């Protein structure tokens, strides 16, 4: 089963004629994902590397039956592109683009209220169900099909966790990068809920970082709703206060956002927290054995 994406997902790429869009559309197809086309306004009717291109998302959906959209359009246009995808009835929208203004995301989230759609990102590596579908920019070869779910605010740190698990012979059901921005489409809680209900997931690795309180909220949720074991790592324990560590979301401001508070909240919720980023795989292995 897995969550969000699988071998039946039909994916269109918004911004498919851009260099990043085309490169990753091709990579996803090579992995075995059904990439059924792309959207670039003004280039409808053409074809690029075997992908049919449409002017609008609604035309792409009508012609291909796509249910998933992968967005690579530049940040200033993401508000428009995300809502266009939702309006066209796409069930799952994955926005890879980095640098989307926060006030735009407030509008997107308001627009999504009450609609039956899921948004992942922005500023994320995407979603991967090993052996079935890669809908994002992660390197395919590091993944192994299996039964561990992964959720992460960080891109490369997700790869690190996946790689550690694969090297221990532990496969993954689905790996979800939720993105490092202050306001994102799906939170830890949303994805934890999906993994809890997924028959093919036995345990979850959750990778958080300093800033905000998403990890504390996730801890509350885990305490009350998760029967499956959860292992976590929080990046940025050694980060100084008041300095934004790359991600717009990763900053310790005032009294909130420190790694120490997050670790404490998670441990209280029964989560096993990894002592170092090199031990995510081993900690999970110990927890499920």
């Amino acid at each position: 089963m897995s969550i969000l994406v699988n071998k039946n997902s039909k994916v269109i790429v918004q911004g498919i004629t851009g260099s990043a869009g085309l490169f990753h559309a091709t990579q996803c197809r090579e992995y075995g994902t059904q990439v059924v086309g792309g959207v670039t306004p003004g280039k409808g009717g053409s074809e690029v590397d075997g992908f049919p291109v449409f002017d609008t998302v609604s035309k792409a959906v009508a012609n291909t039956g796509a249910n998933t959209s992968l967005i690579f359009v530049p940040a200033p246009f993401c508000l428009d592109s995300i809502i266009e995808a939702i309006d066209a009835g796409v069930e799952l929208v994955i926005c890879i683009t980095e640098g989307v203004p926060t006030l735009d995301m407030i509008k997107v989230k308001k627009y999504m209220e009450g609609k039956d759609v899921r948004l992942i990102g922005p500023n994320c590596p995407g979603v991967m169900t090993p052996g079935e579908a890669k809908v994002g920019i992660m390197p395919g070869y590091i993944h192994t099909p299996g039964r561990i779910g992964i959720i992460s605010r960080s891109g490369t740190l997700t790869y690190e966790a996946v790689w550690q698990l694969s090297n221990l012979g532990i496969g993954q059901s689905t790996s979800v990068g939720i993105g490092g921005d202050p306001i994102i489409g799906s939170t830890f809680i949303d994805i934890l809920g999906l993994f809890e209900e997924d028959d093919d997931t036995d345990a979850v690795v959750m990778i958080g970082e300093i800033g905000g309180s998403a990890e504390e909220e996730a801890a509350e949720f885990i305490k009350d709703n998760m029967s499956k074991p959860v292992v976590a790592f929080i990046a940025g324990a050694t980060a100084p206060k008041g300095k934004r560590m790359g991600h717009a979301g990763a900053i310790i401001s005032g009294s909130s956002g420190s790694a120490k508070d997050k670790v404490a909240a998670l441990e209280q919720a029964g989560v096993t927290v990894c002592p170092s980023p090199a031990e995510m795989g081993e900690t999970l292995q110990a927890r499920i054995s």
Partner: protein
Amino acid sequence: MNIHEYQAKELLSNYGVSVPMGKVAFDHEEAHQIASDLNTEKYVVKAQIHAGGRGKGGGVKIANVLEEVKQLAEEILGMNLVTHQTGPEGKLVGKVLVEEASQIEKEFYLGMVIDRATEKIVVMASPEGGVEIEEVAKHSPEKIIKEIVDPTVGLLPFQCREIAYFIGLQGKTVNQAVKLIMGLYDAFVDNDCSLAEINPLILTKDNQVTALDAKMNFDDNALFRHPDIQKLHDPTEEDPTELAAKEWGISYIKLDGNIGCLVNGAGLAMSTMDIVKHHGGEPANFLDVGGGATTEQVTQAFKMILSDSNVKAIFVNIFGGIMKCDTIAEGIIAASKEVGIEVPLIVRLEGTNVELGREMLSQSGLNIITGKDMREAAGKAVEAIK
């Protein structure tokens, strides 16, 4: 991006927010001139740096007569102002705001932030002004009112009235507060702020609601649509290396340790600092070369790390996704040719084109210590400086 108090007050006054009369001065003669144009009995001279706690650090002074303004401006300009937000090294003051001194009846707090939990703009206010809102939140949370803004309708006047009554305003001052809060909100959304803070908001002895201080931060991701705000950027407020890094698309933050770190991805970069510390070492920096770095960017990143004389070893930790390992290898080789890397270089490569990257490094003739994973490489990096 942050701006100065004087810039924030200028911006806000365009939105109908009441602020004291005043202007920025770059030398004491100018300060005197500005003061002599003000119709007031007392004056205030305020250091303009991007940090709070200026008053306690001696950066805000009251002049009781016009002649005193020049002397106070001379004292403050050029001083190294140390506050709880500047760090022990302090900040050099290059400009002062000269204002009419206000007769304060009461001080309040007013702030706007983007609340991640509700995913909306939240307006906060408190009758406890002039102190840090985090302290109020800790000791007397009941003294803070929060109004959540629905993005469909924006901030509404009734919400501002709720705030005004909560902080204890009455009569005509309520309407003044409503106008001020609405103005602040319009400035916030028009300019893509991430934070706006009036602390303190004051009621003067002659019943005027005025912003005595103003702090505004802007969403870096939205600056592309605000060229006028970009112009307010003051490069002297930033660490020159961090600023240069930004121009190269590299995210660099200097720290106090001696192991330089070169990483791709913010999360992995933070984790690399964490694991260096876990093995008993001290990271010299946070450095994220970004997802799709080029050979030039990697070379530049090496130069930045090496510009820090504390660096005794460099730890390269790359997990290639979009970033290909051969690009990193090329950057390492180019950088060592260009700048010469005299300190031990510890490299851990994984991900896209990893075999090619490793081969390029091993054939380069460079003296590189390799680590098969993050743990081994971090251990070797810490070992290398002993």
